[in-house]
């Protein structure tokens, strides 16, 4: 295994296409290992269902006009129980169709998590790489900033930012980006430094590859797996934190978002109106659970710490 990895490194610098095969083979191997774990498969199935629901939301339910991310409100049918005609999962206190909220909430969550994960990964990878490659003072300063960011618990930090920016969905995205990028910067920097020290990068240097080439061909692809594990876990966590912010009241009024729906619906639970918060709450749970299971499974496979030794 180790030999393979080393060969792969040299091959890549030589721009041999066998590198691709080696990596493909390794990825297939990883994939089969991931799929060997039943809980990971369970997670994967839920993830796929969730994504399908988010993507096909306009097909599943008629989009609300003019803004499909707003709940359609049938004020006069407020507080209808599930299985009411036209409201299969019932309605909220504001007459919002819970089913619509569940379906479009998946889309909202997907939008939220994809946006935040993409932005944080890009931001974190750039900053972490710069710190790791440039090193010295730049590294020192960047890492101190990262430390400062990491010293504030994430939900509290996001809560404070979102509170100060004012309640809106965009501000939640902004707050989460500000909070979540640091992890990637840290992971990336550690990876860069670790890989920089490996022999095959030295070999590449000897062969005269430029810094950028080494970065693009060796460091970046090799840092992929820890970033991917973190990104997968964050796909779940971001929705969890985002929903918590919404629950506390920092999202837009009337938006089709699970946290907002739970918050709206919690008041009715005592009167037996369990549906308005149960279904959306369950969705948040399933969403986070699914991504956590998959991320956990990926980590087990990709993280050598838990690999069997014998």
């Amino acid at each position, binding site marked *: 295994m180790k030999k393979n990895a080393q060969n792969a490194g040299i091959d890549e610098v030589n721009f041999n296409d066998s590198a691709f095969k080696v990596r493909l083979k390794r990825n297939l191997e990883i994939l089969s290992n991931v799929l060997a774990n039943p809980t990971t498969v369970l997670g994967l199935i839920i993830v796929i269902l969730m994504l399908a629901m988010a993507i096909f939301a306009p097909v599943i339910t008629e989009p609300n006009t003019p803004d499909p991310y707003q709940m359609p409100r049938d004020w006069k049918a407020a507080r209808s129980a599930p299985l009411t005609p036209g409201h299969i999962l019932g309605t909220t*206190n504001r007459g919002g169709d819970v089913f619509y909220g569940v379906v479009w909430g998946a889309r909202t969550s997907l939008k939220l998590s994809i946006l935040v994960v993409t932005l944080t990964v890009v931001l974190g990878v750039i900053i972490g790489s710069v710190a790791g490659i440039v090193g010295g003072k730049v590294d020192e300063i960047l890492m101190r900033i990262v430390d400062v960011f990491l010293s504030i618990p994430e939900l509290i930090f996001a809560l404070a930012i979102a509170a100060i920016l004012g*309640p809106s969905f965009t501000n939640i995205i902004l707050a989460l980006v500000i909070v979540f990028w640091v992890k990637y910067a840290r992971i990336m920097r550690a990876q860069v430094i670790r890989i920089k020290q490996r022999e095959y990068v030295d070999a590449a240097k000897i062969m005269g590859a430029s810094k950028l080439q080494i970065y693009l061909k060796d460091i970046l692809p090799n840092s992929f797996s820890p970033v991917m594990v973190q990104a997968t876990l964050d796909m779940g966590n971001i929705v969890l934190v985002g929903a918590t912010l919404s629950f506390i009241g920092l999202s837009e009024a009337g938006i089709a978002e699970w946290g907002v729906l739970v918050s709206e619906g919690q008041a009715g639970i005592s009167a037996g109106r369990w549906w308005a918060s149960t279904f959306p709450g369950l969705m948040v749970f399933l969403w986070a659970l699914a991504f956590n299971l998959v991320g956990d499974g990926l980590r087990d496979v990709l993280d050598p710490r838990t690999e069997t030794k014998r």
Partner: protein
Amino acid sequence: MRNILIVAYSILLGLFLTVGVNAQTIKNPGVLVHAADDEATTLDPAQVEAGEGGETVILQVYDRLLEFGPSGPELIPGLATTVPSVENGMISDDGMTYTFKIRKGAVFHDGTDVTAEDVKFSWDRIVEMDLPEGQAGVISDIVSETKVVDDYTFQVILLEPSASFLNSTVVSMAASIVSKDAVMANGGVVEGEPNEYMAQNAVGSGPYKLKAWNRGENILLDINENYWGNKAKLAARIEIGAEPDVRVLGLRAGNYDTIETDPSFVADIEGADGVTLHTGGLLLEPIHVGFNLNIPNGALPKEDTIPTDFFHDPRIRQAFNYAFDYEAFLMGPLAGFGEFNPHYLPIGIFGHDPDAPRYGAQDKAKAEALFREAGYWDNGFSVSVITEEANLFADAALVLKDSIEGLNPNFRINVLAVAEAVFDEAHAQNPVEYAMWVKNADPFADPHPYMSAYQHPDGEWGEVHGFANGYRNPEKIAELIDGASTELDVKKRAAMYSELQKMLFDDPMWLITAQEGVTMAYREWVTGFVHNPLWPRPSLRFSYLGK
């Protein structure tokens, strides 16, 4: 390790299970537990804001010269032994001088006697301190001079005759009588500076004494055994800051005796075991949508496309009034508990004319015609409405959004539901930098404060929001409001308000969504339940209640 844990757990479990709760027995005997919404900010009558949590406590621990009785707007004696009237000679014929006989034998919680000197001191104190958050204006706007005639006689001379002095000034929480000795011993009176002692303690003469204030948790009140009137039957505990649903759950579980709620929770309470829902009567705090006729250039949010003089056109204001889905708001958020009341004079206030024309029902055709006439139908517009992230305000804003957007897809309403402080700050700007907002009014017992604050072109809000730019006939409206305030002839006064309502239908400055119905919930074991919306929220006097 495992053994000891198992042992420990089972011991703990055993202990707790023995404390099983029997739902049938009265919980917390001897104490009335009320679950409130807001934390009090201050307990000082000179500092408290109208409608704020501290008023709940001030109502119970302080006395005023007069009080609203348990039912409706009639006045009953408080520390004054009689309600002044022209007939009993305690109001001078010119309506300028009011005389109050102070009750002998009333004592403050610190043991000192209540005298006319204390009354004068209390009234003068709030005017002298003149705190921005307080309600000094309630007295200073109307009172010219206070006099101690003798130890037990107090006299007030007004600036001009007022029809609303007794109903809005004397009974106000701001006019609560405090112990002069206690104040002078603890910081005295300093202009513009809050009195820290008074903010946290209460030395009044009311049926309750303040026992403890555990911020964020509860306020404990003890029975005042030396009260001059009917003693309270129960000690009281005000539980602070529980979420609405927790309050409902607590009530159902019997942990709370009375809770504050709003109509959107009625369905949660109806039919619950051992719980009585009190409905009927209306709150006097109309929930309104405001129109800004004084928008500064370039101040509006980026999404807004309206011109700054958008609401100067009465047809636009009328169109909004026609477009709003009143029924949706009443049947949805208010769950049917309330009344259509598209006027700023609430039902239940003197001068409200039930026969005056009103909006009350959505009329899309008329709204469309008016928008077309004003020239906005084809191109549409986008406008932001700012509101507090509180249930009913946000609900009203959303109903507005749904109503307007449902009328024409080119119309866009952006609901900005912001933190209370953010809203307060935005709303306190002069001029306000938003075109529309949703909030409620303060309750008053007399029509004049409503009219002067909310409709008068030069009134508190009329000035800020530039009503003079929009009224078809601002002088006539100003004249009517001013005239009605000094008119002592009841019939004439009523006619003037009736005319005002007709004019304001044609020339609306607000969109009044509905008048919220009173909904209170309490355990069946609470006896003597009475509720008066003229008392500060939650509109309960604990001293009347038993269990």
